[in-house]
């Protein structure tokens, strides 16, 4: 069975500071890893994904994430947070041969001016 853990329900950062939203996963096989963002009253939007290759993945809105196989982690990062980054962030994992994704329970990011 595959699973995703987002250990922090809430992350608070000041605008302009770097942010990190943590994600660890458990899967049998090579994982595909995703980050999605959810704004209030809107559906999930794709941010970035790791399939293979470079462990550092760059995505939308200046976000990036680093795949660490030994630590089974895929933390989301941004060098300088914006107030508009405030939203609910979900990490997800799937296997190569199946589209089924397992999502974490989400982390609420609040960026304060």
């Amino acid at each position: 069975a595959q699973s995703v853990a987002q250990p922090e329900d809430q992350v608070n950062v000041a605008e302009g500071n770097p942010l990190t939203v943590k994600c660890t996963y458990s899967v049998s096989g090579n994982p595909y890893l995703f980050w999605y963002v959810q704004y209030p009253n809107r559906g999930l939007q794709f941010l970035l994904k790791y399939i293979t290759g470079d462990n550092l993945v760059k995505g939308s809105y200046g976000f990036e994430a680093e795949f660490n196989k030994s630590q089974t982690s895929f933390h989301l990062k941004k060098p300088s947070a914006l107030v508009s980054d405030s939203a609910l962030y979900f990490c997800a994992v799937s296997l190569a041969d199946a589209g089924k994704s397992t999502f974490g329970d989400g982390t609420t990011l609040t960026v304060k001016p």
Partner: protein
Amino acid sequence: EAGVAQSPRYKIIEKRQSVAFWCNPISGHATLYWYQQILGQGPKLLIQFQNNGVVDDSQLPKDRFSAERLKGVDSTLKIQPAKLEDSAVYLCASSLMSSGGGTQYFGPGTRLTVL
């Protein structure tokens, strides 16, 4: 390019009633997913279609939930009869790829309240 469309956006029913949700995926996307998102939790896959065939419905409560995608395009998810614990947001997503690497594009969701 139009996104994933869902209707209705909101639905309030009483327990033991039935309800249906509709989804129209992005044009050309062969794979369609239905998720249940309970408040405070991440989306949980209910069923995955590849064209009009079911790929995975292992987490679909088949005694009360059903879904179809008859022509391989739009899809309907039905609950009959509804229970209080079915109160959630029901998300539809579509993807070009059926494999695990495919990016999923989500609709706005239908918020169901069961009283």
